[in-house]
């Protein structure tokens, strides 16, 4: 008897507990799983508390609004209602804070509390920027929304339709349009015509790379008006719409976006290398070296230029140039669009032009009011949306010289809080009504 007992496998509490991180599938990179959550519309909420009441009937089998997983708060000064609701974040802070690993994020995206392991310490309520796990004032238990396993009662019973259950946007037309434009640009600039981005001429129309033109002027020492005017097209496009070239047209950007889909794990850059000013230094260096050497020095290693020159069906296939694109695309292993963020002198030129831009992106934290959502910050490829500010309820200031106008944030925001505005418009979404 004693011997057989010793042979039994020893299960510890650790073995029983769910693994915390959500399993990521490779297919998620191309077709991300839609995150389920409940959308709250403060304009419709009347503060009747039906959601609290009906939620408690499921939580504790009683009508006990204090025991609900949703809470309606009223700001009497502003006369507005707000709902405290779990957003089932992609990276839940409550999950990381839980000392007993009682919180898990399932494959269905729902963040749940495993009552077996929860010790009601309340750390999750402190960690959550929404304070969405709610401590029952009567029993001390922690209640957290589990979306009623896919059919939320609060949504069904809300008399004003202020709550909507969503599994995310089914079709993101901006995303589809961007991929379409990027693919067409790649086809045109890289595959069909040789050297198109650097210099293109069709009849009397001439277009050229502004950075290449700057180097040209520096190396030749003369201002060629035709060349300068041909570079103006891209600059005018940038003044009108911001750095849309980088987000929608650039063939190397397209390659980086594709590489991003297959990067297994990012290793990050050391902090001292993460300077967005570096690309302006490289631009200065490119112009200076061109002046010193007497030829367009940077163009020989420019990944956009080499991609256009060396990878098409009619390309030169120079072995040295062929290596540049994969070498620089490998920077994607460190951070998304690392090249665009820190190194690209073309982006720097367009960044300077975008100082005169007409458009800007604004994100109204008041409109979203879901500090734990931060999907805009997560999808931004150049990492210019400050998630910490959003978590504090502050509308983040977006540096438009860095923004590549890919509109991922606008496309992704479930609250319509990310918008395109003219630069002189002061209001951010949600603030005009207050």
């Amino acid at each position, binding site marked *: 008897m004693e011997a057989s007992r010793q042979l039994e496998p020893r299960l510890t509490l650790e073995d029983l507990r769910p693994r915390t991180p959500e399993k990521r599938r490779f297919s998620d990179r191309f077709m991300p799983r839609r995150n389920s959550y409940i959308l709250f519309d*403060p*304009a419709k*909420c*009347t*503060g*009747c*508390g*039906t959601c609290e*009441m*009906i939620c*408690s*009937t499921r939580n*504790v*089998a*009683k*009508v*006990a*609004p*204090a*025991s609900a997983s949703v809470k309606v708060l*009223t700001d*009497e*000064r*502003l*006369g*507005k*209602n707000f709902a405290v609701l779990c957003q089932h974040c992609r990276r839940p802070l409550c999950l990381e804070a839980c000392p007993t690993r009682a919180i898990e994020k399932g494959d269905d995206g729902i963040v749940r509390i495993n009552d077996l392991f929860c010790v009601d310490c309340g750390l999750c309520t402190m960690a959550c920027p929404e304070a969405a796990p709610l401590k*029952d*004032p*009567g029993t001390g238990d922690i209640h957290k929304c589990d979306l009623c396993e896919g059919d939320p*009662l609060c949504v*069904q*019973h809300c*008399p004003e339709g202020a709550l909507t259950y969503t599994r995310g946007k089914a079709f993101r037309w901006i995303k589809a349009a961007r991929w379409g434009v990027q693919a067409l640009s790649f086809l045109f600039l890289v595959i069909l015509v040789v050297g198109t981005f650097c210099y293109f001429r069709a009849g009397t129309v001439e277009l050229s790379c502004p950075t290449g033109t700057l180097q040209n002027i520096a190396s030749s020492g003369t201002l060629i008006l035709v060349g300068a005017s041909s570079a103006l097209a891209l600059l005018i496009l940038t003044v009108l719409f911001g750095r849309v070239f980088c987000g929608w047209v650039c063939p190397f950007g397209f390659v980086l976006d594709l590489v991003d889909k297959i990067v297994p794990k990012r290793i990050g850059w050391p902090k001292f290398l993460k300077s967005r000013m570096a690309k302006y230094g490289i631009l200065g260096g490119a112009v200076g070296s061109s002046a010193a050497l007497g030829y367009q020095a940077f163009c020989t290693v420019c990944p956009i230029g080499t991609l256009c020159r060396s990878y098409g069906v009619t390309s030169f296939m120079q072995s040295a140039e062929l290596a540049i694109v994969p070498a620089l695309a490998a920077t994607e292993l460190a951070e998304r669009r690392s090249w665009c963020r820190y190194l690209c002198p073309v982006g720097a030129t367009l960044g300077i032009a975008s100082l005169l831009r007409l458009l800007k992106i604004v994100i109204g934290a008041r409109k979203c009011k879901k500090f734990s959502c931060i999907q805009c910050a997560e999808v931004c490829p150049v990492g210019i949306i400050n998630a910490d500010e959003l978590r504090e309820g502050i509308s983040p200031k977006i540096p438009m010289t860095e923004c590549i106008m890919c509109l991922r944030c606008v496309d992704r925001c479930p609250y319509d809080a990310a918008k395109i505005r003219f630069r002189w418009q002061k209001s951010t979404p949600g603030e005009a009504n207050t």
Partner: protein
Amino acid sequence: MSLYQPFYNGKIGVVDLTTLSSYTLDLSADLCRDHIGGASLNARVLSEYESDSLVFGTGPLTGSLAPASALLVGTFRSPRWDHLCHVPCMLRSGPELKFSGIDCLVVRGAAKEPCALSVSRGRVRVVPLPDSPGKPVYELMQMLRQGAPGFRASIVTGPAADRNCPHASASIGGHGSPDRVGLAARMAAKNLKALLLNGVGGLPFREDHPALSKATEKRLKDSGALSNKGFLPVVRTLDDGAEAAKVVRGRLGRNRACYHCPCPCMTWAAPGKTGTGKESILLMDHAGLAALSRKSEDALPLLKRCLELGIDPLAAAQALREDRPLREALDALEALAAAGTPIDDEDYPSAPGIETRDYRILGGGITPLSTGRAWAERAASALILGICPVFMQIAARLDRSDLLRFLSPDMEEVKSLAVRLDGQVEMLLEGKIPEAGV
């Protein structure tokens, strides 16, 4: 076998302010069955105590999944008219009292010092408030939030009640109330500044209640009863509602509903002109604002002042002369709040087309959306069942049996309950204290 299931804890809390003691009693099932609840049960409970006692009670549906189950009723004998008065208190006050573990609270005697009663987890606690007299309602609310945090609903009195103004009006969470018959004065006489409710508990419900609730709401929606939401549609139905609609134009914010009400009749508004432009007030008293609007274009700042002082806007409107400058009108309100004499109007409070005595018995402030006996019966039924009386009128298609089905699934029992409810409505509108033991 009876399937009657009232939504009750079965507890009565009794607090004696003279001795600062409190205890709880069991609420007998027979008493609930005979008197159903709410105002009717309050009257019966009051018969067991001194005539100057004050009873706050809930109906059998208060806090339940029945629509607009928000009601708490304050019952007392009016010294002015020598009959019972039942003041409805909405927002979340009813459910919070019920979820605090008691269904009915009897307040006896009078405290020596100003105090508040805090009800939570089936217990009643007396909280001394020595610095509260004379404080405007908003300041008092702030003081209470700091001094006795955690309460989720409150009924307070303002400086007008402290100064024995006969037109003092109790205020639900600082937003005013339909009290025009002296609930605030009765509270002030007991030195009771506030009733703080913290319902952290809950009550079991019948399995079919969620579906029944949804079906009732859908039927109301389909009938078009819920199409006009907010303060404006309701105030427009009043005789002098056009002026009020003009006054609030462009100043209205979002709608606000009482507990589980599918048809909000209140709206937030920015009063402006008071130096605190961003602060909102909740427009709850339709008739009060309509009356103020008749006297002044600055009805919203005046209403805000009324709420701060804790006086009835209808009385304030009657005391004001027409088209006074705002400053003078505000001073007149101060004078009214400080005066101990009633306004010179024998018909106050009254509503056109409604028997004045009925109107006063039911608190004198329920928005008169219909007239005659129909209004009185619907309002009285609401006060007995624990449903908002304004909702009962807005949802005119809502039959009483629709609500009684929440008490019993058996249609025969529903019929007998309806008969009993009719009897209780009759008794309620007589305004008499039922004899003990009845």
